[in-house]
């Protein structure tokens, strides 16, 4: 009886400690990143680091603007491409596809979400970048490049590696994830609502527009924000095709960098304390950015859906 009591007591305490460990890891992550970047924070400050475009390791001058710019721009472009296509896939899977197709296509998309992201990166380097250089770049030059103001964003000749290529590879990588969330949100709409609309003579699009999308809105937006969080922190899909040039490019076709790309390429090469500390600073900025995005996505939108 005593042995039972002892086991009972200690199991409860061990379980509690494990739960606390989860909190400790997250808090420690923030503290450690902050402590490691304190040298860079005291040297460059916050505003100067975020706005300075000079990233010059030999001169020990470090500004985060090119990496932060690359992260934000590639995330925005990839979301802009992935979301419409993902919603199209979700509409196709819930409303259009014949029933015998829905499960296999749905499972295929979920499995594609499980493929390691480094494979998207390798494909990007060996197949998509040459495709961009030979086929897409001339088309972009001939069309978008001709417009007066935005034309300069689409100028320049490159080996196919750059901000736009990285953004497209990124969008393909988050596509299955976004599509799966959108489909699950659409599926949660009660049939009776859709049937009522059909009974009133609504077309499929009317039902989507006026019943399904309003009903599933919060879930879809939450899903998009979570995809955004994924795109922000994705490393391997973009490292191969971004180019790792620490500049803010004039054109989307030119090589650039992002926080994750800079970390992946330079972390093991950092030879001075200030260099390493600046890289930790970038990691801290990325952590805070994705933390905010996740909190907004999960707690402002998805929590409401669950209740």
């Amino acid at each position, binding site marked *: 009886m005593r042995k*039972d009591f002892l*086991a*009972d007591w200690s*199991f*409860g305490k*061990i*379980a509690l*400690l*494990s*739960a606390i*460990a*989860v909190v400790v*890891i*997250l808090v420690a*992550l923030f503290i*450690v*990143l902050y402590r*490691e970047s304190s040298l860079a924070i005291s040297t460059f400050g916050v505003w100067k680091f975020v706005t300075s475009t000079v990233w010059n390791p030999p001169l020990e001058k470090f500004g985060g603007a090119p990496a932060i710019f690359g992260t934000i721009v590639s995330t925005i472009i990839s979301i802009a491409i992935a979301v419409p*296509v993902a*919603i*199209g*896939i979700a*509409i*196709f899977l819930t409303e*259009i*596809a014949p029933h015998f197709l829905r499960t296999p296509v749905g499972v*295929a*998309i979920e*499995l594609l979400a*499980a493929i*390691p*992201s*480094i*494979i*998207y990166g*390798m*494909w990007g*380097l060996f197949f998509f970048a040459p495709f961009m250089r030979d086929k897409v770049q001339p088309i972009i030059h001939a069309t978008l490049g001709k417009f007066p103001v935005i034309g300069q964003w689409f100028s320049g000749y490159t080996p196919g590696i750059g901000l736009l290529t990285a953004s497209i590879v990124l969008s*393909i990588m988050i*596509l299955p994830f976004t599509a799966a969330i959108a489909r699950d949100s659409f599926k949660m709409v009660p049939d009776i609502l859709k049937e009522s609309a059909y009974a009133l003579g609504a*077309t*499929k*699009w009317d039902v989507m527009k006026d019943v399904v999308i309003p009903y599933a809105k919060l879930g879809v937006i939450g899903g998009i924000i979570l995809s955004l*969080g994924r795109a922000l*922190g*994705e*490393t*391997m899909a973009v490292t*191969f095709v971004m180019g790792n040039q620490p500049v803010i490019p004039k054109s989307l076709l030119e090589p650039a960098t992002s926080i*994750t790309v800079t*970390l992946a390429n330079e*972390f*093991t090469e950092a030879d001075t304390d200030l260099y390493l500390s600046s890289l*930790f600073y970038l*990691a801290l900025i*990325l*952590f805070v950015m*994705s933390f905010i995005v*996740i*909190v907004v996505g999960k707690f402002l939108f998805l929590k409401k859906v669950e209740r």
Partner: protein
Amino acid sequence: MDAFKKRKIINNFVLVLSTLAALLGLIWLFWILGTLLYKGLGSLSLEVILGDPPAPGDNHGGLKHAIVGQTLIVLTAAVIGIPLGILAGTYLSEYGKSSRIANIVRDLSDIMMSIPSIVVGTFIYALMVKPLGHFSGLAGSLSLAIMMIPIIVRTTDDMLRMVPPELREAAYALGATKFRVIKDVVYRAAITGIITGVILSVARIGGETAPLLFTSFNNNFFTLNMLQPMASLTVTMYDYAMSPYKYWQELAWAAAILLTFGVLGTNILGRIVAHYKFKK
């Protein structure tokens, strides 16, 4: 009748558009998958699996060191992450329930699930690699374990909460202590669900590269010592794909297909276990 016609036209237009979107998405995805199968299967051979790493420019050699390293790193991560995750999930479901502490842990664990993996790598670098002065397989395992824990916490919590309270009450009525109720009743009822969660979390971390880049790093020699830098399939892929040597690039594709088989196989295994549970 005009308004009706207009609606029909818009309807057809949108339906065609979303079918095209679905096609477009699937074409990209199958292009990648096709490339992987074509290049990967083309470079697979017995030598690739069993051989020692090639010298630069050499056309012989294989991935034995990376395959063994990958397995060791992932297994060690599982040994660290699984007990911690299951215990924390048990606390949430059986002890904390919907108390304030439990809800805070739940929210933080959910946030942890989406932290960029490369940030976890930098964290372990500062915590372990920098003080010790060298990279190690164990550091790689630790960063993978950190990514694994929140997934297991979430599934364990969800699965245990699905066990009907009547089962627990019946065991309490027989005079069992809480530990016995959890061990002999709750875990037994939820075991397939927990196993599914564990398998899926292993599949999820198995393909991660970014957290290993500056923790376990890479090693051109075969080693079983977790305190030494250790090669993994993912980091080897990264290094070989970026190299100028044709044979190394081929090895990278071979590693890619081995990794994908491993990850997808684990993933499908998890789904089969889950299916088996909910069928019953």
